[in-house]
């Protein structure tokens, strides 16, 4: 079965490969960073949590002080690439398209292959295990097509991982910070503050406050799922539903979308905004956010109007 544990081991192998190539290249701090990351994926479940925490701090310090340095990987010359294109033609698209298509196929069809206490995919993480299976067959197809050795696949994934660099750590670190915020009671404090200071008698004001509050808190937390319960409990239910008698289903549906507008605006939503900037090799890490900002702000305004018109 394609379990999460199996996928973690695959991730560990990929990170160890990056570490190996960095070490070969005498970039020792990078090698340490990727080795620690691989170790957490390989042995995380068997280590005391405090040790994992210490490794995370170590990685963050190496990354934060510029210790994760990108590598120089030899790629084929443009001329060789064009010859390859001539030879392979449209077949080059096959492995690339196999990833999304096989993922969807697996998640829809193969998910149902199961017996007593056994299943091909992990039902709790259907998309990820389907993606793992799809990526495996796509690698086989790509190796067959390009006649490359498996080591080259490791080298190529290392090249792209190093192009992303420290940004790779960021989504997980931010999710960790979100969980820590929860433990410390950040959400409760915010909702206490809003109920203490906001006395909104006009429904439009209340709607605007809920929508903007949702977007702002998402900007801070980087995750609309984290903002939704806090702002809905703090502003939405007491003001919009109980005081003004609005429809809770409409409030929830559009309220969550206001949170998504916030997601488009924040570096805290690293996997959508900062990581793609690194993956696309953009010099400005905030370029994706800047491209999204006009859409997000106009849509937030439209959401306020929609909520006001539809809810009451």
């Amino acid at each position, binding site marked *: 079965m394609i379990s999460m544990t199996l996928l973690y081991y695959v991730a560990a192998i990929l990170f160890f490969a990056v570490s190996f190539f960095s070490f070969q290249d005498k970039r020792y701090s990078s090698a340490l960073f990727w080795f620690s990351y691989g170790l957490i994926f390989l042995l995380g479940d068997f280590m005391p949590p405090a040790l994992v925490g210490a490794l995370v701090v170590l990685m963050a310090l190496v990354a934060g002080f510029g210790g994760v340095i990108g590598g120089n990987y030899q790629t084929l010359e443009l001329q060789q690439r064009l010859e390859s294109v001539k030879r392979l033609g449209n077949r080059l698209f096959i492995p690339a398209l196999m990833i999304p298509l096989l993922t969807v196929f697996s998640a829809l069809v193969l998910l149902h292959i199961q017996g007593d206490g056994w299943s091909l995919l992990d039902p709790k993480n259907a998309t990820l295990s389907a993606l793992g299976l799809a990526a495996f067959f796509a690698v086989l197809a790509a190796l067959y097509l390009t006649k490359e050795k498996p080591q080259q696949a490791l080298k190529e994934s290392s090249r792209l991982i190093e192009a992303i660099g420290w940004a790779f750590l960021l989504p997980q670190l931010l999710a960790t910070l979100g969980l820590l915020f929860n433990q410390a009671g950040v959400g409760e404090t915010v909702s206490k503050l809003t109920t203490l200071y906001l006395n909104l008698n006009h429904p439009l004001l209340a709607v605007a406050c809920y929508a903007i509050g949702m977007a702002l808190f998402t900007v801070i937390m980087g995750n609309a799922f984290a903002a939704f319960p806090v702002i809905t409990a703090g502003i939405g239910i007491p003001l919009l539903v109980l005081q003004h008698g609005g429809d809770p289903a409409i409030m929830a549906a559009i309220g969550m979308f206001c949170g998504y507008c916030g997601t488009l605006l924040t570096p805290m939503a690293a996997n959508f905004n900062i990581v793609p900037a690194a*993956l696309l090799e953009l010099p400005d890490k905030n370029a994706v956010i800047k491209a999204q900002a006009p859409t997000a702000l106009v849509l937030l305004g439209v959401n306020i109007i929609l909520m006001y018109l539809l809810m009451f």
Partner: protein
Amino acid sequence: MIDFSLWPLLGIAVVMLGFILKFNPVLVVTVAAFATGMAVKMPIISWLESLGTAFLKTRNLPLILLLPLAVIGLLERHGLREKAQSWIQNIKAATSGRLLLVYLALRESTAAAGLTSLGGHPQMVRPLLSPMAEAAFEQKHQSLPDKIKYKIRAMSAATDNIGLFFGEDIFVAFGAIILMHTFLRESGIETDPLHIALWGIPTAIAAFLIHGTRLIRFDAYLARQLKDELKQAPSQEPRHD
């Protein structure tokens, strides 16, 4: 007035200050996590423990980015980007804006049908979408300065995000709908999940119209940018790489 502690908010202040002062985000987040722990008087060992536990719990996050990279890397080595570019150059009507508009429509509608994995930055945007959008521009203007190239790439990533976000939320089985339904129930309010999904449709349409309009105007915007760029550096040859 305030009879409760404001200390838990210290971490938020650190994050905002750090991003404004443009420190390395990894460092900012770590310091914020440390400040939050200290503000609520967590002993350092239990702080490390909750850090480690949370980090292990979120190990699934990098996978979606990580797993497709080997395939994409191999194909890039053998000219996938160049192939995508020459393919789009055969379509005479293709422009960056129009191509992204078609992608937005496909991404949003497939996400709404629950097919959220038919896209994404490593699988679609880097190897296929952004090279095609870049090639469409170059074909029309015979040049592609870095500044324009970066704008096209950023808009490609933005279009993937917007299509995904505002499509997936009108699919009933998606986690956000379940989350909203469960949360409202816990607060004593009964709703129908289908109802929540349906009321997402007006915003989904608005998102398509707003971003679609921007994409239609994107070509003219890029053309103006190119003109400025050429005016500033008339002697410089446009770079190809």
